[in-house]
């Protein structure tokens, strides 16, 4: 018996509150992932590549994705308890990089719940769009949710 409610499949959550990407946040994240390319730090280097401001590292999208996953964890009937969750897979599909100044919202859909033994694999997709409604990146995660102690 899967610990996760199978009725979650197909559920779509409301868009998250807009997340304003700041230049210092991009630099902070870039340092944290050992990035050293100037496009992440130097606005002039980013402008030379055609961007309005510094470019966030590719996995920065997880900051917005995480807000959507908090919605899933907060769902009262989900059966998902954070301490029993393991991140198994992660994927990003990009229309463009995230840039400082972007205002991003994420919309989460649960696309799969599959029981494996006493665990469940939960696949969800967070579609991240900018203030103009244009697609920026879709973040897909596979979480393995254990039954834990009851």
């Amino acid at each position, binding site marked *: 018996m899967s610990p996760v409610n199978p009725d979650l499949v197909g559920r779509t959550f409301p868009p998250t509150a807009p997340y304003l990407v700041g230049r210092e*946040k991009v630099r*902070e*994240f*870039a*340092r*944290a*992932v*050992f*990035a*050293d*390319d100037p*496009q*992440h730090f130097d606005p002039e280097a980013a402008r030379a*590549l055609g961007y309005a401001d510094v*470019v966030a*590292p*590719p*996995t920065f999208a*997880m*900051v917005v994705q*995480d807000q959507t996953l908090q919605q899933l964890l907060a769902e009262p009937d989900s059966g998902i308890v*954070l*301490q029993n969750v*393991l*991140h*198994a*897979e*992660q*994927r*990003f*599909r*990009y229309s*463009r*990089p995230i840039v400082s100044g972007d205002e991003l919202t994420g919309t989460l859909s649960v696309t799969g719940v599959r029981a494996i033994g006493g665990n469940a694999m939960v696949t969800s997709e967070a579609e991240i769009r900018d203030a103009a409604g244009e697609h920026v990146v879709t973040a*897909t995660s596979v979480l393995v949710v254990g039954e834990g102690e009851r």
Partner: protein
Amino acid sequence: MTAGAADPAIGDVVAERTVHLTRESLVRYAGASGDFNPIHYRDDIAASVGLPGVLAHGMLTMGLAVETIVPWLGDSRRILEYGVRFTRPVVVDPETGADLRIVAKVGAIDDESARIDLTVTCDETTVLGKAQVRVRLA
């Protein structure tokens, strides 16, 4: 030798590096990302849930792995897709830390894009599975 960004061939190593992780790296990533799961900085909690030690965030490993190829790409707009499986935990010792070795190799090429395969190892053990970046050809 690393291959040029313009004309990669299958098997070319386009970038590689070694990153030394310490507990400070994990605290820094926790703050930058907002992931404050205590298994990434507290030995007692890591032990209580049966882990061999404090672990690096999977998303930190994923994030630093792809950054290895950004200087080679020149423009992150060329990254179309990036996916990984988290197959093995990276234990970060409080005194000696952990070394991650990243090698980026061209795995496949079609008309418009190339698949870059990232091999990420810690103590000779591969920690990410199917770590693949699809990039637009320059």
